[in-house]
């Protein structure tokens, strides 16, 4: 009830000058609540992380975040994430293309399944992929005799991250492809362009911002991923240990400051990636608006 009266207040204050913009009530209430909740759940705990790092001297911080074992984990985390995101860039585009442009039996089911990595808990994905790729698993039993080991190696990490990031490129590219105007392609054809030329010169420029957005999202998600990876990675220090696991390891030894230092490095990278994604999305909106 108090909320209702609150939400009516801006309405009364609105009338003359920007009536068309501010006629809707609830601005103060909804923005106030949003900021309040955001502060409690996200901003204050995040600031705790930053304050904790100030308890370290600069030298201690650098040592904590650049010891050989931690550096090896960055290489694995970023390398595997990049590889997985690139893989998803190619196959995500292919899947989005097939889902938008072609008809085939079971298309609706495939379309629904694309969201599985969003809905399936990461731990379940982790043990399941491990079971498939282990020496006695459905796929592992055929690869092992060939000398190819995927489970408990960095390659397993990449596979888990491909699974985790699979929906992003599909879901960002799909709507853009659906909205793409066929007239442009028809015009290009009538002007003598081949199908490949049309794809690289007409379609690809149109979907590039969406592709890159999906790629960056898959990459960002992969860097932070923990649940699915730890089951399949084998977690050997220097070889198959991801950065989030380093944080857990330090926590278990009650090295809170060291854990926080590594966490801050990851946090800064997440934040930079988030800004990149936002920039890409803005580009995408401009791109979508431009040709119309």
């Amino acid at each position, binding site marked *: 009830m108090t909320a209702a009266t609150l939400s009516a207040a801006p309405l009364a204050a609105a009338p003359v000058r920007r009536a068309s913009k501010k006629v809707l009530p609830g601005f103060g209430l909804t923005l106030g609540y949003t900021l309040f909740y955001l502060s409690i759940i996200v901003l204050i705990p995040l600031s*705790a992380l930053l304050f*904790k790092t100030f308890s370290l001297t600069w030298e201690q911080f650098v040592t904590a975040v650049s010891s050989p074992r931690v550096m090896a984990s960055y290489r694995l985390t970023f390398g595997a994430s990049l590889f997985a995101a690139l893989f998803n860039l190619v*196959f995500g585009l292919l899947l989005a*293309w097939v889902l938008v442009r072609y008809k085939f039996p079971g298309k609706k089911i495939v379309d*629904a399944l694309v969201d599985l990595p969003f809905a399936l808990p990461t*731990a379940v994905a982790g043990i399941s992929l491990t079971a498939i790729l282990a020496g006695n698993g459905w796929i592992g039993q055929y690869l092992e005799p060939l000398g190819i080991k995927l489970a408990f190696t960095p390659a397993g990490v990449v596979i888990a991250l491909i699974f985790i990031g699979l929906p992003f490129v599909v879901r960002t590219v799909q709507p853009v492809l659906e909205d793409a105007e*066929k007239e442009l392609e028809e015009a290009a054809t009538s002007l003598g362009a081949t199908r490949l030329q049309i794809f690289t010169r007409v379609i690809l420029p149109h979907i590039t911002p969406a592709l890159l957005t999906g790629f960056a999202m898959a990459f960002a998600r992969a860097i932070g991923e923990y649940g699915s990876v730890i089951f399949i990675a084998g977690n050997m220090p220097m070889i198959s240990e991801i950065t989030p696991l380093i944080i857990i390891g330090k926590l278990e030894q009650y090295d809170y400051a060291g854990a926080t230092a590594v966490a801050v490095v990851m946090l800064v990278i997440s934040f930079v990636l988030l800004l990149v994604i936002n920039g890409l999305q803005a580009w995408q909106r401009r791109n979508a608006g431009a040709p119309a």
Partner: protein
Amino acid sequence: MSANLQNKAKARAGTTESPWVRYTLITVALLFVLLFLVLPLAAVFTEALRKGFGAYFAALKEPDAWSAIELTLIAAAIAVPLNLVFGVSAAWAIAKYEFRGKSFLTTLVDLPFSVSPVVAGLMYVLVFGAQGWFGPWLAANDLKVIFAVPGIVLATVFVTFPFIARELIPLMQAQGSDEEQAAIVLGATGWQTFWHVTLPNIKWGLLYGVILTNARAMGEFGAVSVVSGHIRGQTNTLPLHVEILYNEYQSVAAFAVASLLALLALVTLLIKSVAEWRAEQEQKAAADLPPERPLLVPSPSGRGPG
């Protein structure tokens, strides 16, 4: 059939590929889906039933499994409504108004999405843990957050924080606020406008946001793992229980519990598909209405009992 395809190909000359390119692309895409989506899903159920239904149900009847189910349900039952209220409120503020710092606010709302779950868990340990900001105060008042249920709920809220808002913001931005403004001009209060104009327009997107949030809340592993303390029968959620069983080489039991979570994922996908289909149907129905811009002036009183 092939004649039909050829006719279609002719009709759309220049905007599609030759049949063999089409079939190759479809085959490769389906193989990719089979390898990376269908196999992992199928493996969960096969491994769970490896020793038959008896062993499967025995694993689910364990008291530890039950307490894990209970805790998972509790965490989701608190986290989902909290993020629902936040999501609607944030979407209303961001989609319906122009203000300074809006894009920065949107970035902040998205932030939990890209923060590693492990980092999320760690920051709550730093705030509420024994050595944390509120640690001494909590200990003095005999309250426990970390290694207890409140910490698990907090971590769950954090990792599912942006989903509903992310789902609603683009939807509400696309719909604009013409309908709401009309309702207000016609004398509806803010709440009436929300219930009778906005909510019917966003209900399918909202439903999808809620079930996705629910699936992620019940399945969260990393963040919950950091704050839970893994006390069997007390602070174990379903995913953590899966991990314990798996590490104890109780493969069938681990996959049996995991199959519950996989079923949850399948139900989530099913509801999502139905919601999308219904939303499409409604859009089509609206497009078939006689006036050029249908439902331009919805009257709140005409939308059913108030």
